[in-house]
Each structure stands twice: as structure tokens, then as C-alpha cells.
């Protein structure tokens, strides 16, 4: 309650909202300014959204693994070029007292033939022992049983439609068969994993089927090793022990490290981050130019009035404050439509590309901060024009 008298005092000290009136009494100009700011905001939302969405999408599958640590070959550079390492290394980790269980995983891109139009397209194939835990989703174990039959695969129903109407046909009860590398496979079930940046679709197979589909895989070689730890053990300590005991032909990562490894590849080895950041920067600059133009001409048009206020005894900082508040109002009023449009466009992007693009708080704050910098910076530049207001010249 102690705040109320203070608020009332501030409220009663308020003055004519000059900034608001200056802006709103010229609706056409205000509309142009807000359109410009919103446009810049939407552009930034889209560019940042795509960028983050693409990076997040690169680890759609990585996130699903039921694992604490991951073994990969140091020659692997990303999910689209995973190199093999001896399966023995993964088995060796069982000697560590804190390792509770392991799952060897085969991982490669294979060509899938669309059963409807017979076109082929690259799909991510994961091979594992159907009895081993693979994903944190407990529903997989039951579905995986079917993989014990040779030539069966579990098809990811979230795969892009270019792989054919596999999920629909399967649900209709039809036998869905396809070809991988000239070998016939049959869909034994559906799973929901999601597309990632490197793979437009996913299938799961048993290790045995995988070996058949990719006969060039050296025996005893795997691409990924999952290591589950006993509850209460410290992953950092175990990683250190494993690194010391294992030869240098494997890398030990945490699950987070495995995901970062993938994201870093797309971030650093491709121009994606640069391109989208550049796009956002363009939006920012266009917005700056528009807001500056609007505020500058606003100050210029009202220069005699500002000079009159100075002649009446208003302080220059007070008048600078009027321009600053105009900038603040523009930022707030321009951000809201940009935010709303961003939400709408994100859901559009999600349905069209299946990229995980969401309006998260850090990005909403980032774009608002950029719009604020844009408007306040432009207001600051426009303020220099106020220096030309000479109260001695108005008589």
C-alpha cells in the first residue's frame, strides 16, 4: 500500500502527453512508421526463427536417445557423415563401475524408394539390437519386437511426404514394401521421431537388417555408442576415466555434448548462421532508416513549436525527452503487431516445413531489444535537429 500515495503523486504530476499527441495527430505518418517497424520486427523474427529452428532441428533425433554419454568416432563430423569405430570400444566401457548399460547404434543415410512413385530419396537409418533401450520413449520396446524379423523397418510417420504415403497405407492395413539399396524391406510399424536438418525422414532397423542393407559396413563397426550410467554417478568424472582408459580412436561426449557437436557443425561449417543473421541485420537497418526519417521530419516540422516551448521556459532536456518518448512509443506500438505476426508466421512455418520454430522468450526479448535500440538510436539522431531550435528567432 505504501506505493499508492507515491503513484498518486506521480500521476498528479503528469503533463500533457506531448509525444503521444505529436505522433497520433498525424495518423498517416504514424502508420508508415509502425508499418516500417513492424516489417523490420517480422523480418527479424523470421530470420532468427529460421536460424534457431534449423539449428534445433539438426538434433531432433539426438534428443530422443536414452543415454548419458555417447561414443563417436573422432572422424565423424556431423549426423550426415558419421564414421565407424570398433564396437569393442563400447563394450570396454562396461568395465567402468559406473556404467550401467550400453547400446551400439548403426547410423547412416540410405536411399529409400518411394513405394508410390518409385523415386528415391536419402533417409536416415538407425540400426540397433531390438532388445536394447534406444530412445527414452518407453513405447519403442514393444514396437521394436517386429524388427526381430529380417527385412523389417519401423518408419517415422513424421518423415517428409516425399518418401511416399507410407504411414497412411500402413494404417489402412496395407502391406507397405520399399527398397533400400536394391534390398526389399517391409514396414513393420510406425514411430514418431521428426525430421532433422540432415535427414528428411528416419527408419529404424535391427542391426542384422542394417548389415544386409549396407553390406559394406565392416563387421564389428558401429557409428554411435550409447552409455547409460548408474544413478548418482557424475558424468564428468566418468568421461575423464573413459578418456584415460580408451584409445584415441573414440570420442566420449555427454548427451548435451553430442547435441552441441551436431549444432556446432551446422553453425560453424555452413553459412546458415551468417545468412540468417545478415537477413535480420537488413531488417534492422531498414527499420532504422524508416524510424529515423519519420522522427527527423517530425522534429523538423515542429521546430518552430519546439522553439516556442523553449521561449516559454521549457528546458532542452525536457524537449529531448519528448523525442525520446516518441521513439519509445514507436518501439512499443511497432513491436506488438510484429510479435503477433511472428506467432502466426511461426505456426505457418511449422506446418509447412516441420521445423521446430517457436516464439520463445529469449528471441521475443532479443527482437524487442533490437527494435528498442532501433527506435531510441533514431530518436537520438533526430534529437540533434533540436539543437537548431533557437528561441530568439521566433519573434
Amino acid at each position: 500500500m505504501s506505493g499508492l500515495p507515491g503513484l498518486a503523486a506521480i500521476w498528479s504530476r503528469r503533463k500533457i502527453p506531448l509525444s503521444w499527441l505529436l505522433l497520433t495527430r498525424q495518423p498517416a505518418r504514424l502508420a508508415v512508421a509502425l508499418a516500417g517497424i513492424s516489417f523490420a520486427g517480422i523480418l527479424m523474427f523470421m530470420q532468427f526463427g529460421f536460424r534457431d529452428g534449423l539449428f534445433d532441428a539438426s538434433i531432433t533425433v539426438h534428443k530422443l536417445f536414452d543415454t548419458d554419454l555417447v561414443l563417436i568416432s573422432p572422424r565423424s563430423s556431423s549426423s550426415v557423415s558419421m564414421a565407424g569405430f570398433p564396437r569393442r570400444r563400447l563394450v570396454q566401457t562396461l568395465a567402468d563401475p559406473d556404467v550401467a548399460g550400453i547400446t551400439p547404434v548403426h547410423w547412416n543415410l540410405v536411399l529409400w524408394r518411394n513405394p508410390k512413385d518409385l523415386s528415391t530419396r536419402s533417409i536416415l537409418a538407425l540400426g540397433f539390437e531390438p532388445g536394447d533401450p534406444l530412445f527414452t520413449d518407453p513405447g519403442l520396446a514393444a514396437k521394436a519386437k517386429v524388427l526381430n524379423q529380417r527385412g523389417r523397418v519401423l518408419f517415422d510417420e513424421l518423415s517428409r511426404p516425399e518418401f511416399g504415403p507410407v504411414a497412411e497405407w500402413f494404417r489402412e492395413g496395407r502391406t507397405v514394401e520399399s527398397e533400400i539399396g536394391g534390398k526389399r524391406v517391409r514396414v513393420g510399424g510406425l514411430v514418431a521421431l521428426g525430421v532433422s536438418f540432415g535427414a528428411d525422414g528416419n527408419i529404424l532397423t535391427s542391426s542384422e537388417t542394417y548389415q544386409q542393407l549396407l553390406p559394406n559396413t565392416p563387421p564389428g563397426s558401429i557409428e554411435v555408442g550409447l552409455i547409460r550410467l548408474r544413478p548418482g554417478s557424475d558424468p564428468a568424472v566418468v568421461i575423464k576415466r573413459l578418456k584415460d582408459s580408451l584409445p584415441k580412436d573414440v570420442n566420449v561426449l555427454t548427451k548435451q555434448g553430442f547435441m552441441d557437436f551436431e549444432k556446432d557443425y551446422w553453425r560453424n561449417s555452413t553459412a546458415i548462421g551468417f545468412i540468417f543473421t545478415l537477413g535480420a541485420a537488413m531488417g534492422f537497418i531498414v527499420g532504422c532508416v524508416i524510424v529515423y526519417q519519420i522522427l527527423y521530419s517530425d522534429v523538423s516540422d515542429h521546430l518552430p513549436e519546439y522553439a516556442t516551448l523553449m521561449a516559454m521556459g521549457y528546458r532542452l532536456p525536457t524537449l529531448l525527452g519528448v523525442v525520446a518518448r516518441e521513439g519509445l512509443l514507436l518501439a512499443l506500438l511497432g513491436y506488438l503487431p510484429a510479435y503477433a505476426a511472428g506467432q502466426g508466421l511461426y505456426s505457418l512455418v511449422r506446418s509447412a516445413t516441420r521445423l521446430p520454430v517457436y516464439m520463445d522468450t529469449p528471441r521475443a526479448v532479443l527482437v524487442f531489444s533490437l527494435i528498442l535500440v532501433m527506435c531510441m538510436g533514431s530518436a537520438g539522431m533526430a534529437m540533434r535537429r533540436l539543437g537548431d531550435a533557437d528561441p530568439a528567432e521566433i519573434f
Partner: protein
Amino acid sequence: MVEVEGLCHWYGSSEMRRQVLQQVNLTIQPGEVVLLTGPSGCGKTTLLTLVGALRQVQQGHVRVLGQDLNGSSRRQRQQLRQRIGMIFQGHNLLRCLSAEQNVQMGSDLLPNLGYRARRDQAREWLRAVGLGDHLDKLPHGLSGGQKQRVAIARALAAHPRLLLADEPTAALDKQSGREVVDLLKRLAREQHCAVLMVTHDPRILDVADRLVQMEDGRLIAAPVPEPEPAL
């Protein structure tokens, strides 16, 4: 109230330097209405801007409302201006504000007054200048005389002790010019506010308590004419 002694002013620098005011002496008593006339370009506006603390004094002595203006800082002049009402040749109202809001820009300068009090004062002033029915009108919806009356209300709303007016009737026809000047004089009287008004208009000279004439930057006293006989 106002004491001016030996005031000289120059415009321009070096060879272009030209003297506009030469040894001007002028005193205005509290509540006095002084009219300043003279041919165009003789330096009347310059004198007004110096007395109004809008320009830095170069040479001579200017004392306004107890404050010395020689060597005054920007901030001192700005604070002094809050206590001086100014009425311009053009009305210089803020186009985006209604009549009431324009006047409140004047009363907003008063310290320690709540928003409502300031707004009510603004309304009072508009009623006093006969515009009680036009509170919410924007300047472009008002006639020239009405705008000038809003400007008077705005100047008086800050409770000035001194009112400076530069040809306030120049843009008005005879009838409304007369009304504006009478109003100005009446309200200034009620507020015990001194007035220094520059005018070219021979028809309004009779409102003056004292008439001062300027020629080539020098002041000469002149007799106040009798009021025009009503027709």
C-alpha cells in the same frame, strides 16, 4: 521590474558587424503597460529578445524581475523565461494540441500543482479570454483572433510578472486586433503584470500607460494619444 541601461547590441561578426541598438535606456514599473513603436528594422524585436532573456546581452546593463542578465548562463535565462509571458506575431500555438492543451503547456510550468489544478486553471484562462466554448478545438479550427487569444491565455497561465508581445495584432483585422489588445490590457491589469508591447498599429496606441518610440536603435519618449472617439 525591467531596468535597461546603456544597452548596445551588434549582429554579425568582424566586417559584417552592424550595431542595432545604441545606448538604450528603459525602465518599466510593475503593472505598467509600455508600447514600443518605430519603423521596421529599427531594432524593436532585438530589444524584446534581450529583455525576454532569449539572447545573450553583449554590452550594457539589463535587469529583469530582479535578475541580472549580463553574463547569465543558458540555464539562468531558461528559468527566468518561465516567469515571462511571451506573445508572438504569429500565434505559435502547438498544432497538435487543442486550445485547452496549448494553454496547459503554459500552466504545466507552474511547480507544485497537480494535473487537475493545472487543467482547471487552463480552462479558467480560456474562459477569461472568451473561448470557454472552444476548449477542444485544434488551432486550425480557430480564427486568427481566437488563436491570438489562446496565445494570451497560454502566456498568462504561467503567472508571469512581465508580458512581452511583438506585434500581436499584425495578423488580425481592425476589430479583432482591438479586442485582443483590450483583453490583453485588462487581464494584465488584473494580474498586476507589466507589459512591453511592440506595435506598428497606430489604432491601438491609446492602451499604453507610456509610449516609447525607437529610431535607429535609440529610444525617444512620445506622448500617449487620446483614445479614438467612438463612432
